[in-house]
């Protein structure tokens, strides 16, 4: 495709190796990931017109951590900068919108999460509805398990299906140098494990990961200076449902994902590869259906979120992996998805295409 000045592409992607426990700070991680992506596209940092990050103070336990993290950008002279208390994929969306204004050509989006400082079994309780959920100690595993049980009771899937998702993602992750959890596992072996939250076992839950990632986006023809085959964003949309899963009509499907996929034009052509952010194994089944993907789409060749799950980074990595399928791997049309909130409350879908 011949890009117009309003076409925006992912032109570079860098991720740090995922670690269960890093001894670096979030600022250190931001520095290393941004330096790598800037070097990769061969620009000077002064050429970046807008920088935006996604991170969360509650994860690392440090107030205003995103302010300290900006040290890593080298903000002298002052730069144009923003932050979302969400995954870096949503920061990428802000960068995309910022580029649409047409006055700058290059933007950088970063995701960083030092997740190992906090306890995932209690941390997310403070982000839920403070009146009806937090006083009960409602935890993210419980909410996922309630959704999983509803999916089983609907007849759409079984615990064996969940384990098959895990086995496939872990096997896929073997060829991903940036996977934390990988290997060959038999479904029967997985099903022999105890429940953490019936019907979910440890392997159905996301791993705890410290990681950072960064992408560079470019507008119009400028993209070709930075990348031979840019991953043009041809559709992107973010939809949100009610926070309380109890008032959603059917938690065995994802209405917001379906709407976002339609708005992003997923169905306008075949999707070669989809990188889906399913923190819990069974959610991949819900998301595949709601995205409208058929068997021709390869799902999560990276191993997906079950291979590494740094909250605030994992969604941006889906974007980067899907972009790299175009930039490096010759694919023509790919999809990246990320989710946030209890039981797939929010969903972002991004469709990318390469020049043919």
């Amino acid at each position: 495709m011949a890009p117009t000045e309003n076409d925006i592409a992912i032109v570079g992607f860098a991720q740090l190796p995922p670690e269960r426990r890093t001894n670096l700070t979030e600022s250190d991680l931001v520095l290393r990931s941004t330096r790598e992506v800037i070097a990769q596209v061969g620009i000077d940092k002064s050429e970046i017109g807008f920088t935006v990050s996604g991170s969360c103070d509650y994860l690392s336990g440090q107030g205003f951590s995103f302010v300290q993290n900006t040290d890593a950008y080298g903000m002298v002279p002052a730069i144009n900068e923003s932050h979302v208390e969400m995954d870096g994929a949503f920061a990428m969306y802000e960068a995309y919108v910022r580029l649409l204004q047409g006055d700058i050509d290059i933007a950088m989006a970063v995701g960083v999460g030092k997740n190992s400082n906090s306890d995932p079994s209690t941390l997310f309780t403070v982000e839920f509805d403070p009146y009806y959920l937090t006083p009960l100690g409602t935890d993210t595993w419980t909410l996922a398990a309630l959704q999983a049980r509803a999916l089983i009771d609907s007849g759409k899937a079984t615990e064996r299906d969940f384990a098959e998702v895990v086995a496939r993602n872990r096997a896929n992750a073997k060829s991903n140098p940036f996977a934390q959890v990988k290997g060959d596992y038999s479904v029967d072996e997985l099903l022999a494990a105890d429940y953490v939250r019936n019907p979910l076992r440890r392997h159905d839950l996301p791993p705890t990961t410290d990681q950072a990632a960064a992408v560079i986006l470019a507008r119009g023809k400028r993209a070709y200076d930075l990348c031979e085959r840019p991953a043009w964003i041809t559709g992107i949309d973010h939809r949100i449902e009610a926070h309380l899963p109890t008032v959603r009509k059917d938690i065995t499907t994802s209405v917001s994902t379906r709407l976002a996929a339609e708005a992003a034009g997923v169905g306008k052509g075949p999707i070669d590869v989809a990188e889906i952010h399913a923190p819990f194994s069974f959610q991949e089944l819900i998301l595949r259906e709601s995205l409208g993907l058929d068997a021709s789409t390869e799902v999560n060749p990276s191993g997906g979120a079950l291979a590494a799950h740094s909250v605030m980074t994992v969604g941006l990595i889906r974007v980067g992996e899907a972009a790299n399928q175009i930039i490096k791997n010759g694919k023509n049309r790919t999809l990246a998805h990320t989710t946030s909130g209890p039981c797939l409350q929010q969903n972002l879908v991004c469709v990318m295409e390469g020049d043919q």
Partner: protein
Amino acid sequence: MADTVQEFVFNLTFPFTRTLGSTLSTFSSALAQGQIIGVRTGGRVIAPPLEYDPDTAADSGTDWVRVGPKGTVSTWTWVPEPTNLHPLDHAFGFAFITLDGADTPMLHLVDTGSESAMAAGMRVEAKLKAPADRVGRIDDIIAFVPAADPSPSEGAGEPFVAPEENDITEMDAYCDLQYVDNASPTTIMWAKALMEGRIIGQKCPQCDRTIVGPRGMCSVCAIELDESHIVEVPGRGVVSNFTIVTPTPYPGQTETEPFARCSILLDGADAVIAQQEILDVPVSEIRVGIHVEVVWAPENERSAADIDNRSRGSGGDIIVGWRTTGEPDEPAARYLDRMM
């Protein structure tokens, strides 16, 4: 180094009070009286009530409905090992429970004693705290337990008449989280030097700025700095900025009188160290330009316990504070318009 702490445990604990608004005030006030209610909106009864209809965003109104105390479990899970945030200290279930008279479920605990007793379709009933212990919060319902009599709840679905004024309009809440951070290589270098009575920074090979304490990076050039960039700076410098803090009482605040916190530009450094205390100058006489020198704690009293990744440039318990040297002040204008 044995004296350098490598891992820090800290608790993020704070209380706060939330105002409830009219809908949740009505729910809370009724619950404290032992009555669970929902609201009829958009042709369905939502329980517990929401201020808006999640489908249309319309105001839910005040068509209150009595619901429960019995209900039916739809989806459920089991918590084999409760955390400190869960209300029960033994294994229990969580479930969506559609209360009699309601069309949407409530998420709550189900206390059955065993996972095998949990099932979709089971009839349960609310077990409330004693009236004197109720505060109108959702955990006034201790848990749901298997219903002794599965028949429909009496009065469920009937209108609830709210009082003119609600008894309860606020809710106490709290945050109680524990974090375990580990010292970064840069933090360890800083703490180790302080324990030895040395103040260090890192000199950027690109811009030649010396940043004290070390940050592991040059925050101007955005490049990594490591042990090879360490330089020692003298424990002497000039106050470059200050603020006077008038303490307000809050949990954890130990100060009662106004106190000053100063930025100090150490000789040979290009970035200040912030939040420092001057020991021998009254708060009213703190000013930019004073020459100060470091006051170390005696070696046997030094502890690196307070020096973590969050307190960059802080001397913890190792630097007691700073005292004046008696040299004439530097002109304050020299320290204007610094960005660090």
